[in-house]
């Protein structure tokens, strides 16, 4: 790995270790890493918004390619209006003029909500209702014995589970008697559903940790001690141990502080 790339990787490794150091205590390295992240990601977002958003969608259409004439002879000159509406959004910050920003918000919220109503109704309610009307697999009711997804009894469990879970989320009738029983069955089904997503979440979080271990091991440690590589130079090793040293120094200072408090408290109590 040549020098430039190695320096950047070791910066990444330092930042990774400083975020992990939060596990011990909120410390200066973690504060530095978090504030750096907030700034850099905001800057990245400004660039992406400008290049991918404004330049192609607004200026590209206004200027038809040659920037200086802007909207004078562009075929789509009317795109200047969404530009103006967009600029009106910035009046939100001045108390006197913030009513101006209500117009672009009205335009944007109106369209976004109007667009969502039929599509959310169709895809979350209609299609799921249609999918609930499944024929039960009567001829192989018991299917291939226990735990067969295609079997009739599974279809019934799915239907009864969905209906009872919907009943649990029904607020216009008290959960008493038979209705209460169905609601109880509903909350039990919900709990199994939540248990399943709990299991998957554990796997998800651990794979994030594994990814970081793979990065620190494969990209950083291996390259720091890759003597056979032709553009390896001893600086790599030095840098590797320097980063480790930073965290060691911090750990030792914390340990000394811990000892000082212990002695102080033991002196006080003695």
């Amino acid at each position, binding site marked *: 790995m040549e020098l430039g790339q190695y320096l950047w990787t070791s910066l990444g490794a330092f930042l990774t270790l400083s975020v992990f150091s939060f596990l011990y205590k909120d410390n200066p390295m973690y504060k530095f890493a978090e504030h750096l992240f907030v700034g850099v990601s905001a800057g990245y977002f400004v660039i992406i918004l400008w290049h991918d958003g404004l330049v192609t969608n607004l200026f590209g259409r206004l200027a038809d390619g040659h920037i200086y004439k802007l909207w004078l002879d562009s075929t789509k000159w009317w795109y200047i209006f969404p530009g103006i509406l967009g600029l009106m959004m910035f009046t939100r910050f001045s108390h006197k003029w913030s009513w101006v920003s209500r117009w672009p918000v009205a335009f944007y919220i109106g369209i976004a909500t109007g667009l969502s109503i039929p599509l959310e109704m169709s*895809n979350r309610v209609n299609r799921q209702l249609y999918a609930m009307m499944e024929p039960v697999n009567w001829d192989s009711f018991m299917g291939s014995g226990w735990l067969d997804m295609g079997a009739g009894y599974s279809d019934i469990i799915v239907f009864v589970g969905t209906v009872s879970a919907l009943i649990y989320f029904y607020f216009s009738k008290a959960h008493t008697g038979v209705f209460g029983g169905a609601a109880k069955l509903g909350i039990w089904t919900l709990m199994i559903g939540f248990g399943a997503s709990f299991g998957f979440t554990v796997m998800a979080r651990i794979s994030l940790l*594994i990814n970081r271990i793979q990065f620190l091991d494969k990209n950083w440690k291996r390259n720091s001690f890759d003597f056979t590589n032709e553009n390896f130079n001893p600086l790599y090793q030095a840098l590797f141990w320097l980063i480790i040293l930073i965290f060691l120094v911090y750990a030792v200072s914390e340990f000394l502080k811990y000892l000082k408090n212990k002695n102080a408290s033991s002196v006080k109590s003695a």
Partner: protein
Amino acid sequence: MNWFERFMKLDRRWIYLFLITVCLLAYYSDFTVPTIREKETGAIYNFIDSLPAGEVIFVAIDYDPSSQAELHPMTYAIIEHAFRKNLKVVFTALSQNGPGMADQAIHDIADSMRVEQTYNGVSYPAREIANGVDYCFLGYKPYYALVITAMGQDFRTPFPADYYGTPLDSLPLMKKLHNYDDISIVVEVSSGNISDAWISYGQGKFGFPLAMGLTGVMTAQYYPFLQSGQVMGIMGGLLGAAQYEDMADNPGLAKDGMRVQLPAHLVIILFILIGNIGHFASRKNRKNVQS
């Protein structure tokens, strides 16, 4: 104070230490975990494997670096599988922090195709992947719901030019591609909210086959869409990626990672059991003490 109270009062940092040591031990020892094959992932693999050369698939790399750990193995496995079978690929990256990472991933995979490889006994020759011929990266636009709907009419509406600024009409691949009708499958890899938009605004409206690669956290929530046919296949978290790698006979980051998943899961399960057994044991003898 019995062992359980002392165990409960233990500082949480010792637990962190215990978990990281277990993970490192597993990481540095090389035992392999057999990967089960579930039909959710099999459906996607079989569909892509059955596509004749020259067909166009749409891969939406709609996630950001935070879920890269679980979703990159899926993206790499699917795109390499598609390129190996001479399929054309159109990319988008509709998540805010995603475009840079997606661009990097595409170049990594294109480079890895320069080596001759054999998968499932079939040897695939080395190949040069050209932007604009084999793939087209459309890039990012805010408001993914509107972008997905607009692409139904024509890709050019929301994306006059691709991520690198070249107009779509000057790319040979995009000349005959207008909207989802020219795409044989959309593989949407994301960490949740953009997937909802692909179901409601994309598949719901234009009816193309939609496959999904999801982070572990969101996987369970999308099974209803699998059964109702709105989604044809789901890859759930690192296990889903490992299954796809296993089927494509292309072991990568996911299979390497599964080695650590197993012991880490056992640690969590052990903790839950200890916690509960200790909790009930101490409550029982607290009742005996009172009565």
